C-alpha cells in the first residue's frame, strides 16, 4: 500500500468513526432544548472533562506551539505555566456557581444567564455580538487547518477544497444530529487520539534521532539560549504579566466552554475536571514544546512559520508512514474538537438568545429545529469563506483570546459582586472591547511589554466598578442569583438533581 493510500485510509476511517459516534449520540438525544443543547445536563467525569479540554485545545497545540518552542525554546512554557496549570483550573469554581444557578432557573447560554443577572437586553445583545465576532474567525481557522492538513499529508491528492469540505461535512453531520451529546462523545475520542499521538511521538522521535543526550548536546553547543527562560522580547516581564491575565480565566470566558460546564451532571464531576486539568495540559503541551525544542537540533535552519510544522516534519523524516498517518488523524481530531463546540454554541445562542427571546411564540422544540438549521447554515457560510484567500484570518483568531478575555470583569462580577449593575457591565464591555480592537489595529503603542489584554481587562474592571457604584442598585436581580449560592453555603438543600450523586 502506498504512503498516500495509507494516510487516506486512516483519515477516512477516522471520519467515518466520528460520523458513527454522532449517529449513536443522536439516537439518545431527544428533541427538546435541554437534551440537544446540554445533553440533558448529564455530562459525567471523563466525557465532561474531554468535552471541555478537547474544546479548549486547538490546532495551535500541534502547529503553533512547537514553532514557538523551535525559535524561542522553553520560555513559552515557563511564561504560561502559572495561568495554565494553576490559575486557570480555578475557573471551574466559577463554572460551579453558574452551574448551580443555570440548573435552578433553566438557563442554557451565557448570554441568557447574564441577561437575567443584569436585567438588560442591551447587555445581552452586546455580549452576543462580542461572542459571535470572536468565535467566527476561530471556526474559520478550523476549516482552513483541516483542508490544509489533508492536502499536505496526501501530497495534494486531496485538494484543499475537498479536505475542508470533508471536515465541514462530518462536523456538520454529528453536530446537527446529536447536539451536545454528539460533540461531547466525539470530543472524548478526539482528545484521546491527539494526546496519544503526542505522547507516542515524544517517545519515538528521540530514539529515532540518536537519543535525547545527543539532541540536547547539540542544543547546548549551538543554541544554549533555547534551554533557559528568556526575559527579552515576547517573554519580557510586561508580556508575562499580560499573558498571566490573558490565560488566567480564559476558559470561563469562552461561551463554548461555559455551556459545557453547565452541562455537568454533578458539581463533583466539575470539580474533578478542574483537578485533572493541569495534568492533562502537561501531557499535551509538554510533548508539543519538547518536540519543537528538539526539532531545533534535528532539522535546523527553518525560518518563521516553516517551523510550525516541525512535529510533522520530524514524523515524516524519522518515523514509519503509519505514524505520519496517525499524525493526520490527531491533527484532524484536535481541529474538529474545537470546531464542533464553537458551531454548536453559536447556533445555540442564535436560536435561544435571538430567535427564542425576540419571537416569544417559539417553543423549545422549535428552538432546537432552528439551532439545527443554524448549524448547517453557519458551517456552509464558514466553508464558503474558507475558500477565499484571507491571509489575516489566523492573526484575528489568535487575537480572539484578547477579545474574550476582556469579558472577565463582567463575567466574574456578575457571579460574585451584588453591587454590579447593568450600566457597569455595559461600560466594562464597551471599554474592554474598544481597547482590544484598537490594540489589534495598533492604534496605541505597547508600553513596557504590556499588551492590549492588560489595558482592556484592567480599564474594563475599573469602568465596571466606578459605573456600578454611580448607578442604581439592582438588588432584586442580584438576590435572585445570590440566594441560590447562599443556600448552598449555609447548608440548605442543593438542587434536587445534584443530590445523591
Amino acid at each position, binding site marked *: 500500500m502506498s504512503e498516500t493510500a495509507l494516510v487516506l485510509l486512516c483519515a477516512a476511517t477516522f471520519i467515518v468513526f466520528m460520523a458513527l459516534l454522532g449517529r449513536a449520540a443522536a439516537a439518545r438525544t431527544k428533541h427538546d432544548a435541554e437534551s440537544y443543547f446540554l445533553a440533558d445536563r448529564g455530562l459525567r467525569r471523563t466525557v465532561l472533562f474531554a468535552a471541555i479540554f478537547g474544546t479548549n485545545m486547538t490546532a495551535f497545540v500541534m502547529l503553533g506551539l512547537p514553532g514557538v518552542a523551535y525559535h524561542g*525554546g*522553553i520560555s513559552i*512554557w*515557563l511564561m504560561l*505555566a*502559572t495561568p495554565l*496549570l*494553576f490559575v486557570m*483550573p*480555578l475557573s*471551574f*469554581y466559577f463554572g*460551579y456557581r453558574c452551574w448551580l444557578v443555570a440548573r435552578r432557573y433553566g438557563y442554557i447560554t451565557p448570554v441568557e444567564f447574564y441577561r437575567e443577572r443584569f436585567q438588560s437586553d442591551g447587555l445581552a445583545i452586546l455580549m452576543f455580538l462580542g461572542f459571535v465576532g470572536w468565535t467566527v474567525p476561530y471556526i474559520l481557522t478550523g476549516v482552513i487547518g483541516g483542508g490544509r492538513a489533508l492536502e499536505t499529508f496526501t501530497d495534494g491528492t486531496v485538494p484543499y477544497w475537498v479536505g475542508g469540505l470533508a471536515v465541514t461535512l462530518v462536523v456538520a453531520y454529528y453536530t446537527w444530529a446529536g447536539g451536545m451529546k454528539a460533540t461531547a462523545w466525539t470530543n472524548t475520542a478526539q482528545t484521546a487520539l491527539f494526546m496519544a499521538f503526542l505522547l507516542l511521538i515524544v517517545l519515538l522521535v*528521540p530514539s529515532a534521532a540518536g*537519543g*535525547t*543526550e545527543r*539532541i*540536547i548536546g547539540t542544543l*547546548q553547543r549551538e543554541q*544554549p539560549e533555547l*534551554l*533557559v*527562560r528568556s*526575559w527579552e522580547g515576547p517573554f519580557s516581564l510586561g508580556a508575562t504579566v499580560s499573558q498571566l491575565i490573558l490565560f488566567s480565566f480564559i476558559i470561563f470566558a469562552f461561551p463554548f466552554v461555559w455551556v459545557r460546564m453547565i452541562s455537568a451532571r*454533578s*458539581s*463533583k464531576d466539575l*470539580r474533578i475536571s*478542574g*483537578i*485533572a*486539568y*493541569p*495534568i492533562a*495540559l*502537561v501531557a499535551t503541551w*509538554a510533548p508539543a*514544546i*519538547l518536540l519543537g*525544542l*528538539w526539532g531545533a537540533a534535528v532539522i535546523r535552519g527553518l525560518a518563521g512559520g516553516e517551523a510550525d510544522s516541525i512535529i510533522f516534519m520530524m514524523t515524516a523524516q524519522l518515523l514509519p508512514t503509519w505514524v505520519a498517518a496517525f499524525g493526520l488523524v490527531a491533527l484532524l481530531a484536535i481541529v474538529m474538537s474545537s470546531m464542533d463546540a464553537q458551531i454548536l454554541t453559536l447556533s445555540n445562542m442564535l436560536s435561544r438568545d435571538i430567535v427564542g427571546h425576540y419571537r416569544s411564540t417559539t417553543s423549545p422544540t422549535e428552538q432546537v429545529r432552528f439551532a439545527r438549521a443554524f448549524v448547517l447554515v453557519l458551517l456552509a457560510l464558514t466553508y464558503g469563506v474558507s475558500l477565499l484567500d484571507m491571509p489575516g484570518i489566523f492573526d484575528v483568531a489568535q487575537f480572539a483570546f484578547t477579545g474574550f478575555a476582556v469579558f472577565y470583569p463582567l463575567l466574574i462580577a456578575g457571579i460574585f459582586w451584588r453591587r454590579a449593575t447593568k450600566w457597569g457591565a455595559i461600560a466594562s464591555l464597551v471599554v474592554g472591547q474598544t481597547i482590544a480592537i484598537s490594540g489589534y489595529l495598533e492604534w496605541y503603542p505597547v508600553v513596557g511589554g504590556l499588551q492590549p489584554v492588560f489595558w482592556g481587562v484592567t480599564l474594563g474592571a475599573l469602568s465596571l466598578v466606578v459605573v456600578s457604584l454611580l448607578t442604581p442598585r439592582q438588588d432584586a436581580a442580584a438576590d435572585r442569583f445570590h440566594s441560590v449560592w447562599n443556600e*448552598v*453555603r449555609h*447548608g440548605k438543600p*442543593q438542587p434536587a438533581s*445534584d*443530590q445523591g*450523586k
Partner: protein
Amino acid sequence: MNRTRLVIAGAIVIVMLALQWIGWIGSTAEPVILGIPIQFAYFIAYAALSAVAVWAIFRLVWPARHK
C-alpha cells in the same frame, strides 16, 4: 464562608505564585535531566503540585454537597 478557610485558600494561592517565581531563579544555567531542561522539568512537577493545590482550594471554598 468561614474566614479561616478563605485565608488558607489565599495562602495556597500565594505559595503557588511564589513557587512559579522560584522556578525562574538561576535562569542563566541550563542543566538537563533525561533530555529535558531543568526549568522545564520543574514546571512539569509544578503541574502535579497544581492538581493538589487546586483540589485543596476546592475543598476549602467549594461547599460539601450533602450539608
